[in-house]
């Protein structure tokens, strides 16, 4: 395979504590190394001057909708959106149709991804059969077939005893348990965060405590079982505080936050605009502040998008009838730069960690590093170029983004997966 030389980029490799301008060489789909001046003959060159060259970003929380909901997204279209958003690996949640609760479905996804995806796709298996919250799924067998975690995302296990058993299974197979923390009794009927805005709009609320009580439950169960509990898309200040406390106690607890939860609050929603409807909902300003603070303090390990495509026909109805979820892959890096880097809150390598080494560590993926011999997954982005997100040009099959028309500073420039360009801005049509 040909050689690829990325010239003069700012190589940020958190695993090695490296943040300096260097040339990075890729050979045979692997990282061959980086250093101040590479003297290479016969390599394809890419001028990365002024850009950040980072390990390939990993999004540990996406919905690819295949099998079953291919009108919303497919493994192919979702993977293209991922590549355009700077992600080289994505982990897809099991709420497909059928639910990914068996080796058959896991293998189907792995196989489809091998043929159609332009980035690495790692399936996440269901905790319970059909994610119905009752009988445990074939967790061990699914791990053999390729799952990297278990979750009943969107249909959280309400029975604490079932969750305890699931965690014991996960412990046996060394898989993290990713929970969408929501007490469905407390949130029932809710359409947005319960607060002044929901009262004004006359929309039923999803109280922050519906998230908090489940985070508390899962932390306690993680302590009892010794399983690794990962709190998905954490959004409330109390939940974040509890995760922080659990970590201080040395419990095997990790958490992710979505860009929309640190970039937007419930007040930012134009009245009844369903492109701002997701679960957990946009919360209030103090929660948004806690999400930012959680990323800075390390209470929050990773940034994940919860990319959740829905076709226009489903989002074009009464707010209360619209499904939950928004696109996220193509705007995540720009939102993270806006919130953490342009404001000087976080050094670049710390931010890159949230997208690379952190998810790789949680999921035990052999990626997220630029170490010699690692698979050549590389994300290249710039910092100052102004650009405007046009969701109508998205690679996703859906158009449900609250960030349509927003102007950003800096974003993805090129995405390399296993040594090949999966997407590059300068070759876009």
């Amino acid at each position, binding site marked *: 395979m040909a050689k690829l030389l990325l010239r003069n980029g700012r190589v940020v490799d958190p695993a090695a504590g490296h943040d300096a301008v260097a040339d990075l060489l890729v050979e045979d789909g692997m990282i061959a190394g980086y250093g101040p001046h590479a003297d290479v003959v016969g390599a394809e060159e890419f001028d990365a001057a002024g850009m950040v060259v980072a390990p390939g970003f990993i999004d540990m929380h996406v919905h690819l909708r295949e099998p079953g909901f291919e009108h919303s997204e497919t493994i192919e279209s979702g993977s293209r959106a991922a590549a355009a958003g700077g992600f080289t690996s994505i982990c897809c949640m099991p709420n497909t149709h059928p639910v990914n609760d068996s080796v058959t479905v896991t293998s189907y996804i792995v196989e489809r991804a091998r043929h159609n995806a332009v980035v690495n796709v790692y399936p996440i298996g269901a905790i319970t059969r059909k994610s119905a919250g009752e009988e445990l799924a074939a967790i061990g067998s699914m791990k053999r077939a390729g799952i990297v975690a278990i979750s009943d995302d969107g249909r959280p296990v309400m029975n604490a005893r079932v969750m305890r058993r699931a965690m014991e299974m996960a412990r046996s197979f060394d898989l993290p348990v990713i929970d969408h923390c929501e007490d469905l009794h407390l949130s029932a009927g809710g359409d947005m965060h319960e607060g002044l805005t929901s*009262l004004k709009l*006359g929309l039923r609320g999803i109280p922050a405590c519906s998230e908090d009580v489940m985070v508390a439950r899962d932390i306690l169960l993680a302590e009892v079982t010794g399983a690794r509990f990962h709190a998905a898309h954490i959004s409330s200040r109390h939940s974040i505080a509890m995760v922080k406390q659990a970590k201080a106690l040395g419990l095997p607890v990790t958490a992710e936050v979505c860009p929309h939860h640190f970039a937007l609050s419930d007040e930012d929603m134009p009245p*009844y605009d369903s492109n701002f409807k997701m679960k957990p909902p946009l919360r209030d300003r103090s929660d948004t502040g806690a999400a930012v603070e959680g990323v800075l303090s390390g209470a929050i390990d990773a940034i994940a998008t919860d990319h959740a495509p829905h076709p226009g026909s489903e989002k074009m109805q*009464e*707010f*209360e009838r619209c499904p939950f979820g928004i696109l996220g892959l193509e705007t995540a890096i720009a939102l993270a730069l806006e919130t953490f880097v342009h404001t000087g809150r976080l050094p670049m390598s710390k931010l890159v960690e949230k997208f690379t080494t952190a998810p790789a560590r949680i999921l035990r993926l052999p990626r997220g590093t630029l170490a010699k011999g690692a698979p050549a997954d590389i994300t290249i982005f710039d910092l100052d170029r102004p650009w405007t997100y046009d969701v109508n040009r998205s690679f996703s099959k859906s158009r449900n983004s609250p960030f349509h028309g927003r102007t950003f500073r800096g974003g993805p420039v090129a995405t390399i997966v296993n040594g090949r360009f999966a997407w590059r801005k300068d070759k876009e049509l």
Partner: protein
Amino acid sequence: MAKGLLGIEDLERAEIEAILARAKDFQPLQNRSNKRLDLLRGRMIVNLFFEASTRTRTSFEIAAKRLGADAVSITASGSSVAKGESLVDTLNTLAAMKPDAIVMRHAASGAPHFLSRHLPAPIVNAGDGTHEHPTQALLDALTILDHRQSLEGLRVAIIGDIVHSRVARSNIYLLSKFGAGIVLCGPASLLPPKMDRLAPGARITYDMREAIENADVIMMLRVQLERQNESPFPASEYYPFYGLQVEHLHLAKPDVLVMHPGPINRGREIASDVADSQRSVILNQVENGIAVRMAVLERIMN
């Protein structure tokens, strides 16, 4: 009014005053033998009622007809809506019929806002879910002003299922803009904290007697505990603690006005003798509904 009337929250005080002044012009018309004006002759108004409502729909129909407009009413049952047609498709169909205005009631909060983003015709919100019911607040204000010089400084108690009430929200916004003192009262499950932050001048009490003390106006809301999936408050506890009874009236100002948006549940939120008492202006509210809706329709179509 740029386009239609979706709510009171975003209306300027001057705009409200103009509507109320015009409604006052229309009031005497109700007692004439020829009640018809030709201000909107040849215009077509579609009344789109996705939720049952005899009185509001009739009131809008009469208002439209008295202005000389052609009014067509479509109710959800018996229409394609009941056959599962989506809101977007219904509206596309309507848009093709080129109405000059649409009056809309819908069980979902924000449904008229959603439609107004996609339709050229002005939309009058005749009640959306638990959000707003602007013409109700306007007719309530007109009714109060039939008996008081101004709204400023009045003490208005709004009692009942506040959280699910579009009437309460619109009234809170309107009364606040005119400097009234608003006391919200109901059980905590129907009156969450922060409700008093909807607009300046509002406060919360869970004690009915405190709410009524020195009140100039008592607005009772309809309770529909039996219609909710789960009961936020036991129905049997409601009337003894939050139902308006004759002995309450002594706590209020002697000339207190008792109001209710209707239809009333006698013996559930209001005692029968209170509803029929001299202090009740419930039927005046109904009468004023027509004048106010005439003023609104005229304003949005001219």
